[in-house]
């Protein structure tokens, strides 16, 4: 027995990084299982490809980072490999699994031609984990959310080849695309394209019975995961509240214009439509709450959520791309360090920060009013 000298404090909260990552995996379970049940083998293929690519990349990264320090002698590859493996920790396995599952869930099930799906998944997950995370130094150092980065890359490269399948569970209420992407085809007017949103049942949207990517349609499963994350405190509620709250308020303001200008759409239909379509809930639950890519203090996190909400709304209402969530998250990831700058960072909601938050909201409201206010009424 000997006495070990260590610095205070000598006790520790029962918590660990691995536990936090496992919490996210547990929260992802309902969505993944629903996706597996609905889409069958195709879902399993997509999930396993992206998880495998991400895990392998991270493993290679660990090998590269844990080389034997230079000592004059030459080491065999086997020695290098074994030495590298010693640096492999449980979070090196869990973090890419989380990213891989999220990435697979926001990718479409099939493509046309069919072999493109392999290319999209492999290149997308490779880009996501390498450019989005590993080049910055791995877990904890990344600027971008790996899943969002990979998804945006794949979308830019292969977006035109995506196919949104329908089967016995998923009804093809709209042909050829998702609910959101079909909007652009119906009318050239920004408000006019919402004329038919009343046709889609809110229950179908809630249950994921509309065409879409692998996992983000199943709102009930996502809500289960969200509740679990909040109960386990693995997600910061400040971001969630400011993002979802900000989004709902901004969409309600947009709704006032839509309801007055488009006949046959009522306010409730509009709100349900904007909250239940696309990857809003999925992105908020699993991608926006990634603590690594968000600011570190409470006011920063509230502003981060608001910024993401504003960008999502603007991309959805005016953007050329139907989906705004992944793009807005990626853009906000870039802005996160700005909220943390040491000259004004702090965990207190000072008057200046409240004024800044208010002016951020004002800018977004102004943008919506200007964008929709001059639109002519649809017939």
């Amino acid at each position, binding site marked *: *027995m*000997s*006495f*070990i*000298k*260590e*610095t*205070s*404090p*000598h*006790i*520790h*909260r029962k*918590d*660990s*990084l691995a*536990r*936090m990552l496992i919490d996210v995996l547990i929260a992802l379970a309902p969505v993944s299982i629903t996706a597996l049940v609905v889409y069958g083998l195709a879902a399993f293929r997509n999930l396993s490809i992206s998880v495998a690519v991400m895990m392998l990349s991270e493993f290679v990264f660990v090998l590269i980072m844990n080389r034997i320090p230079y000592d004059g002698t030459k080491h065999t590859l086997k020695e290098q490999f074994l030495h590298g493996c010693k640096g492999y*920790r449980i*979070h090196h396995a869990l973090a890419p699994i989380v990213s891989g599952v999220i990435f697979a869930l926001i990718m479409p099930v099939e493509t046309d031609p069919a072999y493109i799906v392999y290319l999209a998944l492999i290149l997308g997950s490779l880009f996501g984990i390498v450019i989005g995370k590993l080049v910055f130094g*791995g*877990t*904890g*150092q990344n600027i971008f959310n790996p899943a969002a980065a990979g998804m945006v890359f794949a979308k830019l490269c292969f977006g035109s080849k995506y196919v949104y399948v329908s089967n016995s569970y998923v009804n093809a209420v709209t042909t050829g695309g998702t609910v959101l992407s079909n909007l652009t085809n119906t009318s050239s007017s920004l408000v006019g394209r919402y004329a038919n949103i009343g046709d889609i049942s809110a229950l179908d949207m809630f249950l994921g019975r509309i065409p879409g990517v692998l996992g983000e349609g199943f709102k009930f499963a996502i809500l289960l995961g969200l509740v679990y994350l909040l109960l*386990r*405190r*693995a*997600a*910061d509620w400040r971001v969630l509240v400011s993002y979802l709250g900000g989004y709902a308020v901004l969409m309600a303001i947009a709704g006032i214009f839509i309801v007055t200008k488009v006949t046959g759409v009522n306010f409730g239909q509009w709100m349900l439509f904007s909250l239940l379509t696309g990857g809003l809930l999925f992105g908020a639950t699993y991608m926006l709450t990634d*603590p*690594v890519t*968000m600011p*570190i*203090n*409470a006011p920063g*996190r509230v502003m981060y959520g608001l910024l993401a909400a504003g960008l999502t709304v603007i991309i959805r209402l005016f953007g050329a791309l139907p989906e705004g969530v992944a793009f807005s998250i990626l853009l906000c990831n870039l802005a996160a360090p700005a909220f*943390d700058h*040491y*000259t004004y*960072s*702090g*965990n*207190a909601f000072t008057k200046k920060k409240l004024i800044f938050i208010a002016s951020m909201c004002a800018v977004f409201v102004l943008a919506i009013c200007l964008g929709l206010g001059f639109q002519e009424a649809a017939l």
Partner: protein
Amino acid sequence: MIAPVSSIHDTKGLLETLPTLSLDVPDYVLLPTSNARCAKAEIFVKEGDHVYLGQLIGQRDGGFFKQPIHSSVSGTVEGYEEHYHRSGKKVSFLRVKNDHKDEWDPSLKPRSDEEIAALTRADFVKILEENAMVGLGGSSFPTYVKFNNDKKIEWILINAIECEPYITADIRLMNEELEKVIEGMKYLQIAFDCKKVLICIKKKHKSLINMYREFLRRYEGSGIEVCPVGNFYPQGWEIAMIKSALGIDVPSGHLPSEYGIANFNVSTVWGIYEAVKLNRSVVERRISVTGDGIRFPSNFRVRIGTPLPLLLEKCGGYTHPDKDKVFILGGPMMGASLPSDDCIITKTVTSVLVFDYVPQEEGPCIRCGSCVYSCPTHLEPKQIMDAVKAFDKERIKALNPLRCIECGLCSYVCTSHIRVTDYIRRAKMFAKTK
């Protein structure tokens, strides 16, 4: 987990109700000739001299204040030995052999109540300075300094919170020395000419609160009241205590006395009673010996200067002798760990903790923000850590690490088991240099 720490599980357990054991006075005691605040000392006795219990035998010099040393046994001076001090350094100790007669220095006369009632604040300064009263809660700050000003004091706060987990010495003192503690508070009222005394006790110590409320009925009109405060850590930090009890926010860099508040630890109040009433310096104190490395955790009343191995023997020694241990003097959050159990009990040792050593590997920081949410001084530990890693002095200074009280919460909550507090300590060193 992304959450501030609400309360640390305090694991006080049954020790809270176990009566304090009295340790036999050892055959010899060891008195430190220097400590964390005083580097030099002047010793008035030499080898072979006979000393009385409570006799002045030397004086430590701490620059702007002096600290007398009193013998804690009667007997003969035997020379010097080197042992570990509470601060983690090896210092020279004066060894005094005990003749087991416990003869008090005949020059020390107890004061009558009338004499005490006539004392002024200046008299208190003199008495406490002569009796070497220091903060017994662990700060070892000379108590007389708190009296040595002419600020109008409106509130006296008694810190009986003991917010560090595991330690129960103060709670036992509160239970067992009820009358002395309250007498001590009355002396404080005389010293500051102030009626309002609040005893701050954690809300969850209901039996203690009820006991004091019941007992204080005998002192109706005395102005002493019990004030239940929060259960969180670090509630015992004076600024947090003042905020909870009175709602006054004392900004960092200011003294509570500027806001008309004087605060004392409950052990110090007991020491003030001894010093004022009996004119004695503190020769014994209460210590918790606990932790999962100790076979029979207990509270002790021990003489100052008792070697710790004697105490550990009384506790049945260590559990799991094959496992490495962490040996801590003080609480688990702020105490210092020593490389050996060869140390001596001084006035400011509140507890001895022995834990089985559990190695913890640091993971990468995932910026969860728990440290930022938990910091009681509203710092951003993660940002300071980054600045220290980058050796960015400008950034370190802008983040103001000198506000840090080293409560240890940032390391305690860290999801990745990073020793954040160590980085803040380094940042403080950076910030102090020009």
